[in-house]
Structure formats: C-alpha cells, structure tokens
C-alpha cells in the first residue's frame, strides 16, 4: 500500500491488481505517474477485486439525504465455498433455509458447568439447583455415571475433521472482506479444528445453510458528509464466559467511519480471551 502525500492518492497493489483511491481531481495525474513506470491496461471501473465485487452508487436515506454508496459482494467466493462443502459431504445433502448462523447454545446446563454428580453414598443435594453431588471429591475426579447427557456423542470425532480447516479458511476470507456477520461463527468453529466433534459437524452444516441462504447479502457503506465532519466510531463488547466448553469470555470489536449521514465499516474482531 502506497500513499502519495502531494496528490493525496492511495494506491493498493496486489500482484497485478491495482486500486487507486483519493481526490478525483488528482486521478489523471496519478495514473500518468503510474503509466510512466508501468505498462498498464486502460482504466477500468470498479468490479471484481480480490474476489469481491465492488460497486459504487447513490441512494437516499430516510431523511431524503442523497449519499454515495459502496457495495461489497462476495457471492462468487461464497458459492465456491458451498460447492466445496457439498463435494465433501455429498452432493445429495440438502441445505435448508436458515435465518441466523448460530444454533441455540446451551451454556447454563452444559456438562462442563454442572456440579459433579458423585457417588450415591455421600451425595448431598444442592438446595439451589437440586443436583446431587459428592462434596468430598475433587471436580476433576468425579465419576460421571449418573450424568444422562450424551458425553460420548460430544467427544466423538466429527466426519469433517480433516477438511474443517480448509472450509473455514475459505469462509474466513469472505468474512474479512465483506461478511462480518460470519465472524463469530467461523471463529467459534476454528477454535475446535484440532478437537473436531460431531457437534461441530452440525454447527458447520448450520453455518453452510446460512451462507447458502444469504449468498447475495452485501455490505453497504454510505457516505454523505465532508471528511472534516467525520469521526472514527469504535464499539467494544464482551460476553460473560458464554463459551460452554471453556467458560472463556469473547471480546467483540467493531470500527466504522461515522457522520450524520455516513456509516462506513472498517474493521471487526471477535476473540476468545483468557479469564
């Protein structure tokens, strides 16, 4: 990435793809400077850039203000991801229509949070949750005999374990460019690549169903203010140890450019933290 201070132009180069941004009155001079050193094809409008379809337009907000919009569409790459997934699980697999990428998550009753059951002889009943447990045994050594939850199902290795990383990384690229809604689901699954269970298979299937249901979903940034009226807006949030397996909290971050008639996303983050 290069920035020309005098012309106020930003040049992004990735192999043979070049993208120039900045003040429109300096574009011609900037292109001439580039052409003096490089053999280049004629100038093209925005289009496919690094797998993302970019399109510029105008639209009106609710209060009637006309804004310039930039749309980021990753439909092509996401289609390839879905096809790759179907190749691995079998072409006969039907992907259902779903509205959100997450399956319901049970945290309060999860096995890792329940009191250890203990043996029947020394068991006492918790007056709060009515669960029976043996207070004399350490939690790690407690037997699990009376636990009716399907532990064996949880630890069983999932069928997609060898391919999970490649599917997730393909999705992660689309997420980083334009599909911020997939970030949490992908990160949650990516943490389990080395301990992939059949539950993760189910979560990945649900995620792929969501991706397939929302292939055309685009990220739209709009700008309707002068640069001097814009601010950087940061949002920080955390959950309270919502990860059922590890009880670790997740930090969420979001950053965009903000103005009265402007909202342009810049970066996001979703990371599990130590406690």
């Amino acid at each position, binding site marked *: 990435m290069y*920035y020309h201070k005098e012309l106020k132009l930003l040049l992004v180069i990735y192999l043979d793809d070049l993208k120039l941004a900045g003040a429109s009155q300096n574009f011609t001079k900037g292109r001439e400077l580039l052409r003096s050193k490089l053999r280049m094809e004629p100038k093209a409008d925005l289009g496919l850039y690094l797998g993302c379809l970019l399109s510029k337009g105008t*639209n009106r907000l609710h209060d009637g203000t006309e804004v310039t919009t930039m749309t980021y569409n990753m439909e092509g790459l996401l289609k390839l991801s879905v096809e790759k997934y179907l190749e691995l699980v079998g072409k006969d697999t039907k992907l259902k229509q779903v509205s959100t990428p*997450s399956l319901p998550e049970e945290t309060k009753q999860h096995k890792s949070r329940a009191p250890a059951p203990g043996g029947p002889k020394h068991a006492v009943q918790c007056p709060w949750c009515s669960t029976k447990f043996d207070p004399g045994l350490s939690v790690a050594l407690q037997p699990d005999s009376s636990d009716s939850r399907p532990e064996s199902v949880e630890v069983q290795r999932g069928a997609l374990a060898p391919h999970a990383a490649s599917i997730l990384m393909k999705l992660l690229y689309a997420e980083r460019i334009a599909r911020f*809604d997939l970030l949490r689901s992908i990160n*949650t699954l990516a943490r389990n690549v080395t301990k992939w269970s059949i539950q993760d298979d189910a979560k990945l299937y649900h995620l792929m169903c969501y991706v397939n249901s929302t292939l055309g979903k685009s990220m739209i940034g709009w700008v309707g203010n002068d*640069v001097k009226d814009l601010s950087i807006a*940061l949002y920080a*949030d955390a959950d309270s140890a919502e990860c059922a397996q590890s009880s670790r*909290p997740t930090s969420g971050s979001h950053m965009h450019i903000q103005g009265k008639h402007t*909202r342009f996303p810049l970066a996001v983050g979703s990371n599990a933290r130590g406690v």
Partner: protein
Amino acid sequence: MSHSTPEVVAADVTLRTMGLPALSVWETFTDSSPKLLFHDDNQGVIGVVRSGRNPTMRHLERTHEISITSLHEHFSKDHFVLMYEITAKMAADIHTKGFTNPLAWKKACMLINLLDPEDLGSKQLADLVQERRGPQYSIR
C-alpha cells in the same frame, strides 16, 4: 472474575488494535485528527476508565497486560470521547453473542452495514444508526 473484567479487556483491545492505528492512518491521509467516539454498553467500564483506577481489578496489568491508567490517559485527550451505548445499538454485540431470533439478527446485521439496498431508506435503519445525543463521558 469480575463481570467487568472481560468488558475492560474488550475496551482495551479495541482501542489498542483498532482505534489507535486507525487514528494514525487518518492523520496521514487528511493531516487532521478526527474525533474518536468510543461506545461501550457497560457503565462499570466507563466508570473505571473515567477514574483511572479500580482497586478490585489490580490483577489486570499482570494477567491481561492492561493498564487502566493508560486507558484513562488516552480518554483525557481532546478528541477521544467515551460514550455509553444502549445494548440495542451496540454494533459489536453480533461478534460476541449467538443470535437465534431472526428479527434481532436482522437489526444486528443492519448495525454492521449488512442490509438490502432498499433498507437504506427505511425508518428502522435511521433509528438504529442515528447518532446519540445523550451524555458523552469526557474525561477532561
């Protein structure tokens, strides 16, 4: 672990890894410093950052390498603004929680600019992204 600890960690990570680098880039491009509006939905974090100290979180520097004093100093600057944001308008919510309700999910997506072009002129979007006029917690 205090319930505010993950929130302070999130605030610190967001400011250090996103906010401060973005300010440098912006200053390079425009030769001016923009306002940095920091939105948090936790009153505890806002109180800690405003005061610059919290005796119950002395472990943060050792366990998370976070200096509350440093956060306090950043927000003492003129162009750093700390704001309380209601959870319904918290854009980072979508990156921490799993949504199963389609309506809540649609709103969360709108907050991060994932929407249909026809929704751009909707009142729902206008209400969601309207700039807050409530109290801004300036540290100065």
